C-alpha cells in the first residue's frame, strides 16, 4: 500500500515534469541563448523560485533536520546568514552587476564575461574548467542520493544502480528537451510545493502534539540542546560555513547563470527583498521539526533520516510520501540545472573558443544538448564506481567554488584589476584549497577557521597584490565592466 502510493507519487511527479518540459520545448528557439537562459525573460516569481529550488538539495529535508536532531537547531542561523542575508547581498553586488554586463554584451557564462574583459580565452577556459571540476562530482552525489533514496523507498526492489540510472535517463530526456525555461517552470512548481508541504507538516504535527511549547517540553531536560552554541556550533564554525557556502553558491554555475536571466531591473529588486523572508519561511519549520523529533521520542539511528520517521509517526502514509517525493524532487531540481549549466560552460567556454570558433547558433544549441547527455552519463558511470577521490571533491565543492568569488568580485569592482592579478588569485586559491583537501599533512581548519576561508583570503591578497604590481595586458577591456549604460 505505502509502496504503491510512494511510487505513484514519484512517477506522477516525473510525468508532470516531462509534460512541462515538452511545453517549454515547443516555445523555445533553437539558439544557445534561449536554451541556456530562456532569452533573459524571467519574472519575479519564476526567478525567485527557480533560484530557491536550485539552491535546495536533499539537505533541506534529510541532512539538515538530521543535524538539528543530533546537534540542535542552530543550523537555522547558518542558513539564515548564508542564504538569507549574505547571499542576498551577493545577489545585488555580483548578480545585479553581472546582469547589467551580461545584458549589454550578451554573455551566457561567468567565464565568457571574465575572458572578454581580460582579453584572455585561456582565463575563460580556466574558469570553466575549474567549475566543471567541482560540479561533476557534485552531480554524481545527487545521482547517488536519488539511487539510494529510491532503493530505500522500494525496500531494495529497485536496486541502487537502477534507481540512479532511471533518474539519470529521466534527467537527460528532460533537460535536453526543456532547457532553462522548462527547468525554471518545474522549479517554480517544486519550490512552492516544498514550502507548502513543510508548513503543512509543521501544522499537522503541532496540532497532534499540542503546539510548540509542548513539543519543546521534551527537550528542556537537556538545556544545552536548545541553548545557542556548543562544542559543535562554535562561532568560527558558524561563520566559516555561512561565508564559504554563501560565496560558493554565488559561483556555482547553475546559480551564477541565473544572475543573467531576469527580465528587468524590477524583477531583481523584488527578488532581492524577498530572500530573507523566504529562507526563514522554509528553514525554521524544516529544521525545528528535526530538533523537535528528538524531544518527541523519535529514535533515529545515526545516519538514518529523521524527518521521514517523524512524519510516519504523526501523519498518514500518503502525506509522508508526498513530503519524501518533495525531497527527491529537490534533488532533481538541483541536478537538472547543474547539468544544463555544466553543458553551457563546456560548449561556450571550452569547445567554441578552442575547437570551433565559427560554430553557428544552431550548431551550438545542438552541441549543448549533446553535452548534457555526455555529462549526465559520465556522472552516472562515476556514481556506480564511486571513487573515493571524487566523493571527496563533491563533499568540498562549495569551498572550491567559494575560492572563485573574491577574485571575480574584485574584477567587477576594482578598475585596476589585471589579467595577471585575477589569474594569480584564482590559481593560487584553488591550489591552496585543493592541497588542503587532498594532502594529509595540510589541515582543513586553522584554529577552528576552515581552510575554505583561508583560501578565500589568499585569493583576495593575490588578486589585489599581483594586480598592483602588474600593468594591464594587451587586449584587456576595462570599459566592459565600468562604462555601463544606466
Amino acid at each position, binding site marked *: 500500500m505505502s509502496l504503491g502510493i510512494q511510487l505513484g507519487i514519484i512517477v506522477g511527479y516525473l510525468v508532470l515534469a516531462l509534460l512541462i518540459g515538452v511545453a517549454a520545448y515547443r516555445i523555445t528557439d533553437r539558439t544557445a541563448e534561449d536554451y541556456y537562459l530562456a532569452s533573459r525573460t524571467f519574472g519575479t516569481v519564476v526567478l525567485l523560485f527557480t533560484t530557491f529550488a536550485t539552491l535546495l538539495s536533499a539537505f533541506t529535508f534529510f541532512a539538515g533536520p538530521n543535524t538539528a536532531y543530533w546537534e540542535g*537547531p542552530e543550523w*537555522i*542561523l547558518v542558513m*539564515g*546568514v548564508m542564504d*538569507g*542575508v*549574505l547571499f*542576498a*547581498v551577493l545577489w545585488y*553586488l555580483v548578480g*545585479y*552587476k553581472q546582469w*547589467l554586463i551580461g545584458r549589454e554584451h550578451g554573455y551566457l557564462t561567468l567565464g565568457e564575461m571574465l575572458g572578454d574583459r581580460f582579453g584572455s580565452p585561456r582565463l575563460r577556459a580556466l574558469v570553466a574548467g575549474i567549475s566543471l571540476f567541482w560540479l561533476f562530482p557534485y552531480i554524481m552525489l545527487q545521482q547517488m542520493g536519488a539511487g539510494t533514496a529510491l532503493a530505500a523507498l522500494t525496500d531494495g526492489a529497485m536496486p541502487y544502480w537502477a534507481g540512479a540510472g532511471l533518474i539519470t535517463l529521466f534527467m537527460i530526456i528532460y533537460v535536453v528537451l526543456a532547457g532553462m525555461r522548462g527547468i525554471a517552470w518545474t522549479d517554480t512548481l517544486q519550490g512552492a510545493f516544498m514550502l507548502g508541504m513543510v508548513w503543512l507538516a509543521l501544522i499537522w504535527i503541532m496540532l497532534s502534539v499540542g*503546539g*510548540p*511549547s*509542548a*513539543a*519543546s517540553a521534551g527537550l*528542556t531536560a537537556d*538545556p*544545552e*540542546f*536548545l*541553548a*545557542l*552554541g556548543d562544542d559543535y556550533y562554535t*562561532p568560527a564554525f*558558524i561563520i566559516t560555513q555561512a561565508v564559504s557556502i554563501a560565496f560558493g553558491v554565488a559561483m556555482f554555475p547553475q546559480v551564477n547563470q541565473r544572475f543573467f536571466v531576469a527580465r528587468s*531591473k524590477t524583477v531583481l*529588486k*523584488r527578488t*532581492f*527583498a*524577498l*530572500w*530573507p*523572508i523566504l*529562507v*526563514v519561511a522554509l528553514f*525554521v519549520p524544516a529544521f*525545528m521539526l528535526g530538533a523537535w523529533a528528538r524531544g518527541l521520542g523519535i529514535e533515529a539511528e545515526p545516519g538514518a533520516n529523521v524527518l521521514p520517521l517523524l512524519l510516519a509517526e504523526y501523519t498518514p502514509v500518503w502525506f509522508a510520501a508526498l513530503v519524501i517525493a518533495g525531497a527527491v524532487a529537490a534533488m532533481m531540481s538541483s541536478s537538472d540545472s547543474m547539468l544544463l549549466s555544466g553543458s553551457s560552460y563546456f560548449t561556450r567556454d571550452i569547445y567554441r573558443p578552442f575547437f570551433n570558433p565559427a560554430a553557428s547558433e544552431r550548431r551550438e544549441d545542438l552541441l549543448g544538448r549533446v553535452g548534457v547527455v555526455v555529462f549526465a552519463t559520465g556522472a552516472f558511470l562515476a556514481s556506480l564506481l564511486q571513487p573515493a577521490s571524487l566523493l571527496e571533491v563533491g563533499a568540498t565543492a562549495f569551498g572550491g567554488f567559494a575560492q572563485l568569488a573574491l577574485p571575480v568580485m574584485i574584477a567587477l*569592482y576594482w*578598475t585596476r584589476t589585471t589579467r595577471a592579478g585575477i589569474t594569480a588569485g584564482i590559481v593560487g586559491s584553488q591550489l591552496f584549497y585543493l592541497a588542503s583537501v587532498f594532502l594529509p599533512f595540510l589541515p582543513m581548519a586553522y584554529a577552528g577557521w576552515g581552510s575554505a576561508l583561508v583560501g578565500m583570503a589568499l585569493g583576495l591578497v593575490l588578486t589585489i597584490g599581483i594586480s598592483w604590481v602588474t600593468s594591464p595586458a594587451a587586449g584587456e577591456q576595462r570599459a566592459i565592466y*565600468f*562604462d*555601463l549604460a*544606466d
Partner: protein
Amino acid sequence: MVPTAERYLWGAVFVLLIVFAVPWFLWGSSRLVAGLPVWLWWHIGWMALASLAFWLFSRRAWGLWIEGTP
C-alpha cells in the same frame, strides 16, 4: 544619485544585517518564549527586518556602487 552620507549608511546597514543575523549576545541562552528559543525569535525578527531594509534599499538606492562610471 544617492547622497554621499547615504552611500556610507547603506554600507553600514548591510554589514550590520549580516553580523547580527546571529544574536551573539544571546550565546549560551536556552530561554524559551512560546516554545521557541529566544535566539530563534531574534533571528526570525531580524530576517523580517532584513527584508524590509532590502526593500527600502531597492526603492531608494538601487544601483548604488554599481551604476555610473567610477
